[in-house]
Each structure stands twice: as C-alpha cells, then as structure tokens.
C-alpha cells in the first residue's frame, strides 16, 4: 500500500477528484460526530440445534423487519449459528417460519447470511464489533460503521446471569460486551448503539456497559426466564420467542416513514404477555426516548457525508476509492430522518466548491518537492522546448 505509485496514476487520481467534485473539509471532526448519517444492524442467533429453531426464526424475523424498514443487505451483518432450513428434521425443507400459520417464509430468496454455523463464535462476534479483522475477511463480513452510524445489535440465544451462550460451547460475558462497546466508542465506530437481547436474564448482560450513546433493551430481568411464544405442531418445535414476537407485532404496524418513538416500543411490552419484565437501560443515552423514532435504529438514513478520514492524502488505498463512487451515487437518496443540521450541510457544501482547486495546486507543489520532480522537470523542459519550437515556427 505504501509503495510509490507511478506518476500517471497520481495524475489520473487528481483528475478523478476533480470530476466527482467532492469537497475536502476543513472543519473539525467533532461536528461530524453529532450527525447521524448511516445505519447498521448486527443480528446474531447464538444457539445451535434443532430445538433452538425459534432463535433462528427470531433473528430472521428481525432481519426481515429491518430490511423492510430500509437497511440494505450490505449494512446488515447476519450471524446464524445453525441452519434450520436445511435441517433434516424440518418438515418444510428450505423454509423457516415464525408463526404456525405458515404465511411468511423467512428464508426466502433474499437472505444473505454473513456468518453461519461454526463461524458464529464469540471471537468473530467481537471482531465484527471492534473491526479487528484478518485482512482476508471480505467487506461484506465487516461492520464498516463510522462516527455517524446508528447500530442495532440484536442477539438471541440462551443466556444466564451476565452471560450469553454461544454455540453450546462458549460464553459472551457482560464484561466482554461492555469492553467491545467501549472499544467501538474509542474507535468512533458508532454514534448511537441500540442493543436488544432476547435471552433469559437478558438485563444482566448490560450491567457492565459504560459507554455513552448506548441504549439497551432486554427481554427479562435478572432471575427471570424468557419464554417461547407458541409451538408449531407441524414442525414440532417452538417457532418464536415472546419478546421477539411482540416486538415484531409492534413493527408490523409501521412502515419506513412512520414516526413511532422508542418510548412507544417500550410501552408496547406487556409483562403479562411476555411472562417476563422487559428491561430498558437509558442512563447512557442522552436523547429522551419519546423523541427518538424507532426508525433511527430499525430504519436507515442514506445520507453520505465524506469525512476527513476517507481523504487523508492521495496515498489512500484504491479499494477505498471505489467505495467513494458508490456513496456518491447515493447522494440524492431520500432521507428518512429529519436531521436538524441537514440544511447547514448543504450550505457548507456550496461554500466549499472552490476548495479542490487550491488543493490541486497544493498537491502539485508538494509533488515538485518530491523526487518525482526530476521527471516532472524533464517533461516540463521537453514541453517548453516543444512549445518554443512551435511558437518560433508559427511566428516565422
């Protein structure tokens, strides 16, 4: 990456920069951190085995809901610890249902599972959150969020006091989760994070969280169990958990334009129906829940804002540049959110249109100081002689 590129690549790169007309900002990064500009979802089903069918159905239902509300597949990391659809015991091969009426096949054509089977481990989960991947891990398996991201983290499985079981062999402890969130905060990987957990004693998993901007919802308090909602007697297993079932029931009434607040989601949980007490941890979250629409986590904004980080010098890796074009194409997507400083952003863009020219000159100057200057000088001289010859020929 750090090797010196041929000159012509630099030139072409600069021209490309001109073409896309992306403003280079001079404002401080802190102003960007306050801005919500994209949404991510990490959906995790941690348990294996046929009798845990409902956990996979829970996760797939959530997956379907966030997709319906506008988060695209490339921004959803879906982790499924087992493949119920292809289990030999499944009465409906290649289909997964979350209701005994079998109206909705959750495992249709458009499901992209990022981590499946034995890939769903505590290690991989923490790597996804903190972004410390092996270089070989493809982009589709990475959580590429930034300081303007709202992230929904949904987890379901078997849990206990301050732990969540992964794959019947390992555990994620509340300390691990809190540490990962802390790292994410340090690395500016999110602006706001909603953690939703459907396990037994889910509330205990949040006890160690300290990072600001984190909101947590759990299906049950300490010492309580989370129960399944109903049994599908054709498939022979429970197909959905109560907490997830009522969460889905809440979202079924919404579309991507609705303004239902988080408070209304919280209020929709009825302890007698859940057979457990839903738990919310709000103390790390600044905004009042009644003013925050649920779509700020479960839906998506597609506002593209280019941060300094993406343009630190021209020696940026070429793959990153590729992504710039895609994001540029999404410039004019409909925005789901009424962000307060949205207009300001437009003004700033208008003001800074002339900036790239300066930047170009500056870079050119920088190039001249470089060792490449030799070649540049040689070419320059050649051109000057050529120009001299032509002008003398023309004048004569």
């Amino acid at each position: 990456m750090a090797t010196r590129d041929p000159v012509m690549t630099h030139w072409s790169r600069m021209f490309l920069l001109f073409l896309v007309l992306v403003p280079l900002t001079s404002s401080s990064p802190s102003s960007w951190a306050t801005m919500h500009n994209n949404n991510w979802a990490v959906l995790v089903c941690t348990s294996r085995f046929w009798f845990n069918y409902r956990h996979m159905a829970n996760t797939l239902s959530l997956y379907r809901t966030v997709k319906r509300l506008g988060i695209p597949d490339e921004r959803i990391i879906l982790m499924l610890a087992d493949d119920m659809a292809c289990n030999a015991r499944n009465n409906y091969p290649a289909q997964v249902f979350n209701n005994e009426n079998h109206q909705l096949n959750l495992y249709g054509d458009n499901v992209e599972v990022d981590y499946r089977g034995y890939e769903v481990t505590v290690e991989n989960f923490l790597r996804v959150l903190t972004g410390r991947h092996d270089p070989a891990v493809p982009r589709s398996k990475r959580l590429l969020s930034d300081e303007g991201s709202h992230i929904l983290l949904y987890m379901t499985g078997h849990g206990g006091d301050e732990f969540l079981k992964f794959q019947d062999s390992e555990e994620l402890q509340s300390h691990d989760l809190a540490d990962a969130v802390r790292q994410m905060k340090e690395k500016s990987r999110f602006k706001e994070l909603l953690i939703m957990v459907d396990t037994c004693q889910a509330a205990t998993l949040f006890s160690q969280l300290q990072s600001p901007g984190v909101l947590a919802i759990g299906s049950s308090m300490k010492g309580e169990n989370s129960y399944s909602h109903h049994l599908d007697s054709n498939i022979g297993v429970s197909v959905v958990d109560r907490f997830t079932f009522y969460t889905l029931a809440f979202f079924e009434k919404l579309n991507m334009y609705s303004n239902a607040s988080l408070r209304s989601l919280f209020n929709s949980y009825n302890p007698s129906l859940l057979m457990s007490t839903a738990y919310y941890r709000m103390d790390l979250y600044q905004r009042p829940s009644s003013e925050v629409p649920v779509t700020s986590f479960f839906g998506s904004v597609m506002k593209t804002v280019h941060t300094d980080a993406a343009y630190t010098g021209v020696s940026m890796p070429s793959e990153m540049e590729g992504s710039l074009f895609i994001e540029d194409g999404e410039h004019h997507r409909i925005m789901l959110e009424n962000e307060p400083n949205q207009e300001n952003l437009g003004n700033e863009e208008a003001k800074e249109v002339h900036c790239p020219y300066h930047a170009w000159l500056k870079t050119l100057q920088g190039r001249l100081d470089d060792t490449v200057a030799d070649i540049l000088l040689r070419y320059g001289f050649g051109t000057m002689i050529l120009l001299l010859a032509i002008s003398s020929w023309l004048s004569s």
Partner: protein
Amino acid sequence: MAAEAGDGKPQPGRRPRSRLIVRLGALLVAHSVLVSVVCCIAGSIAFLLLPVLAKNTYVSENALMPGSANPMFSSHDVVEANRFLKEILDRGSAKVTGTEIAKLIGQHVVDVGAELYYHKFHPHGNQFHPLHFFSSITNTMEMQYNSSCTLFGLNSVGIIRAPRGDGKEAIVLVTPYNSQNIGQSEALSLGLAFSIFSLLSRVTWLAKDIVWLAADSRYGEYTAVDSWLKDYHNPLFLSNSGKIGTGVCFEENILHLLDQLKVKGPGYNIFKRAGTMAAALVFKVIEKKEKEERDSLTIYAEASNGQMPNLDLINIVHYLAVHRQGLRVKIGSMHSLLKAAWLKFVGEMLQLFGKLTKHLNPKWKFDITSAEYVEGTATLASSIYYQALGVPTGSHGAFRDYQVDAITLELSPRFSLNNENNRSAFLLRGGRLIEGVIRSVNNLLEKFHQSFFLYFLTAPHKFVSVGVYMIPFALLLAPLPIVSAALFSGNDNLGVSTEKVNQEPGCIGSSDTELRSGSWKWLQAAKVVFMIHLWAIIVSLLPYVLSQFPLTTPITLLLVWAALSICILLIFYLIFGACSTHCGWELLKSVMIAAASTGLSLMSVINFSTAQIGAMLIVPMCLLVQPLRKQMQAGVCRKAVLVICNLTIAVVGFPPVALLIAKGVCEDFGKAGVGAFWELAQLLWSWNSATYLYLLWIHLPCWVLCLHILLYPCIGRSSKA
C-alpha cells in the same frame, strides 16, 4: 520439639497426639458393636424408606421434545394395518412353510420403497463358556458351524433411509413373531409395525434411518434379535468367510430360500446396515385375559446384569402414553407383596409419620399414603429382583450389550381384538404412541446421556436414583471393615499384652504359645480364606466339565455337581485342615469379613441390586457368627437368641435357599423343585449373569466360612467342620 521447649517439666505420661482421623477410627473400632448395630438398623430403615424418597421422573434432554408435534398416524394407516393383518392371517392359516410371512413382509417393504433383506440365523444352545462373562460378542458364524443346517430362523429387515439425513444414525423397531404358528396378536403387531413403517417412508422429517426388524421368534425372540445384532456389529468380510467354514449347507439353504422368496428387488440376501443405533423399540400386542377400563401399556426395561436403558427413553414413552394417548402404563411388580400385611402396616406407620411431620412443618413432604407405599415397594422389589437376576426381561436386553437404549412395549387392548372398531381405535393409539416416540428420538442430536442410567423404578413415573439407593447399601457395608479391624486389633492386643482386658472374654483359651507367634499369624487365617475361595472358583467352573458329559436330567446334574463340590471341599480340609485351627476364630472371622466386604463393594459396581440383596444376607451373617461352643457359655436367654439367630441366618444365607426364597416371593413356591437350581444356574450362566459369579465366588465361600466358624472347636482340636 515440644520436649526441647519443655525444659524443667517433662511429661512422661503424655503421648504424642495422633491425627484426628486416626483417633476417630480408633473410636469407631472401639465401639464396633454399637456402630454395627446402629448402621445395620439405619440401613434397613433407609432401605424400607426408598419408595418414600422416590422422585417424579422428568424429561431431562431438551432435544427430545416429546409430544410437540402432531401425530401423522391417521385412520388411513389403520386401514393399511388391518389389510396387512388380514393378509397375514390368510397366509398363516395355510401354514405352508415358515417363510410365507417373511415373503409377505418383504413384498410390502419393497412396495413402500424401502430397502429389504433377509437375515438367516441359527439358534445357539445354552452352553457354559467360562470366559464369556462380560464379553457377549461372539461370532455367530462359529455357532452356525456347530449347529445343524436344518435349524434356522429368518429375520426380515426393512430399512428406510432418511431422505435428508446423514445416514449415521438409526432407530430400530422390532416386532417378534412366531413364523410357524402366528396368532392374531402377533399378526396385529406386525400389521401395526408395517403401517408405522409405511408412514415413516412418506414423512419428510426423518433425520435418522429407520430399521424394522421382523424377528423370527420360533427359537425365542432374544435369539433372533441377538444374532441379528451380532451380525450387524461384527461385519463378516469375504476374505475370512472361507476359513470360518460356514459350511456348504449354508449356501445351499440360501439358494433354496431365494427360490422360495420370490421378492422383487436386488440384494435381499445381502446384510445391509444403517449407522449407529440411537434407540430401539421392541413392541408387541398381547391380549390379556383380565379386562381393564383402558388400553394398557407395559414397559420392560431390565437388560443383562441389571443394566437399564436411559431413563429419558422411559420418560418419553410414559409421557406420550399417558398424556397424549390416554393409555394406562404399567411396569412389573411383585404381586405377592401387594397383599403382604406387614408391608401395609409399615405403610400405615409411614403415613402416620408423614402426617406428623406435616403438622410440624408444612414444607416437609413425606406424605405418602399406605396404598401408594405398598404399590411402590412391590414395584421396587420387582425392579431390584429383575436387576439382581441379571437376566434381561425381553429381547431389548440384546441391545443393551451394544450400549443401545432399548425397551419392550407390550400393548394390550381393553376389549377383544375381534371387534373391528375397537381394534381400529387401539391401532390408532398404538401407532400414534410409537410414531411419537420415534419422532422424539429422531430429534436427538447425541446418544441418550442426559438422564439416569442407574435407577430403580417405583412406579412408571417415579424413580429412585443412584445417589439415594446407595445410602442403605453403604450403611449396611460400613460396619464390616470396622468389625474386621476391631477383631483384628482385639486379637493383636491379646497376643502382645495378655494383661490387657479383652473386650470379649470367653473363648480365648487356645494355648498361648500358638497365639504368640507374632503379628503375622493372620496369614494363617488368610490362607484358610484363600483356600475356600479357591474351592469356590473350582466349584463355579465344574458345570463346564459336567456339560461335556452326556447327563441329561437337571436333577442328576445338580446332584453330581453338589457331590463333587463337597468331595473337593473335604479334600481341601484333609490337606490344609491341620493349620485351619491354629489361628483362632477371631482372626479367621476378621479376614473373612474383609474378603466379603471387598467382594460386595466390587459387586456393587457390576450389579448393584445383587450386591444390595447379597449385603442384606451376608452382613448379618458375618457380624453375628460366633462359635456355637462359645455361645453355650453365655446366659440362657442370650444363648437361645444367639443360637437361633445364627442358625436361621446360616440356613437363609445358603445360596440355594436364598434363591428359593427369592423365587418363591416373586413367583410361586410350588414350581420350585430340586432340579430348578440347576436350571437357574444354567439360566444365569447362559445369560452371562454376574450374579452367578457373585453367588459362587463371594456368597458361597462366605457362607462356608461362617459355617466353619459356627462349628469352630474352641478349646483344643476336634473334628473338621
């Protein structure tokens, strides 16, 4: 260190303090009589309390989920079962050969699209193989070589491959039928099995293969199932088939059979397999004479050497039978105990006690009604008896030898099976039950391992786990080492310092010179005990020699066995008798008790029930035994009690008498004859029962030694025992 510190005041009387555990041990040994009385009484009470301490069963394995799926077995399948039943009865009435029904089964199995093959086996006789205990795996081919060619059975086996399964595991269904004389109930069980099999060939949820074994039970159902299992688990490769020499007749028979069984499809004489067995269900329909208000299901679970299938298997069958199909579930119980007055009395006492404790603290749950207690005890007694016998209660026992969990389900209808409607309703219930059990086992991901393997049942839904039933046994066994140590140390003190007061004065008069031979004189006693045990081992091997001679009647065999044993014992006495009286009876008793307690502990690992029953007989015998001459020196009243106790226990402790009593309590005294002992012994060794080893290696020598001590010449030498 302490002596150095204490400068001016040496304490000559003070001994260094020994460790606490040593002092505790010494205390126990010093009060050995009290300890043994308390432990024995507590052990007996704890044993009687077992039905009270029984817990309700629960399905422990999450994956099983019994009854979570709707049964798919419908009236359509019942019609199919009925049709199959009619066909069998039509063929059966013809009674052409033994292969007619096999052919019919084969045809139907092929028609539903499953794989089929026939398994030919030869029955094997009850031979005594001294080295075959605990190793049941033998090759049937060797036996075929010995047996005649004309005797053979034919199992029909159908295999459904799970459409999307990995083919690594299988569930086995077994229906035994008598191919030469098939009755209506056997035909019905075949019909039921076939209808379930054809249903399973259509379902989409199979993860394990299904194997249906229609076992030809003309030489006994166990033989049929066992030889199939042996061939299943010991593949015979073509390379060594020649050297085993299966015989020309085998090939001829197969060819002959092929002509008889004109079934479509290839390879129906090739043995096919289907992965490890997750579970096996043996089921049959039995028409009972006494009518009940509901269709009933009897579960048999005991396999060889008291091994039980995993409790979860019984749990799911019980759950589905009771809560889904409304059947009455029964397990074996001792009917003679149900009417016993003393048991009823104990039950009422416990009921009273339960009420009292409830009055004291409502949280204590000891409440058990008298009737419940009596029923629980009768069931527990039968559970212990069949485990102790070490003989399987059905053909499911063959599976346990390969660590496969299996049970036998005996379905009995409420009304006569001739009525079409009743039969259909009965078939529907039975079919749904078995389908439910298969679906539940199909959900398993691993072998049964969650629930208990060591348990007694006191009711179909109540069990006593190993942690509870060990307590009475441990209490019974605890006094043995203590008394042994007490006797040993008492004798030691006697030898070393004669001025010390002996706790048990009396028969110490054997001449001092003999006693003063040092602390190694226990070796003399050990030699005697060892010789008796050696004798017992020879006695246990005698039947192998006897079976080589052409003696036929059990009575002659038994008499020859007994006579030979006594002869050998006398020879042993003549050779080694000189030293047997040198050592003093306390040491002899001490060593004998040590040997008995070691034997009992070992046996409790192999077959707990045998050890439990054995301990109840041996422990009082070992603890009470004293030379009769010594007892004569005591007071009149004590003398009478001691003598009577000793004699009773000595009689009851004799293994044949104990067996007779056990058999009499369980079945009937009338049937038992002299030859029955030989038959029983034959039964035990033909099933490789460790109980046989226990009886002859531990119980018999212990009894002989006790007799020896009873007749011990206290002063001076006298004739041998």
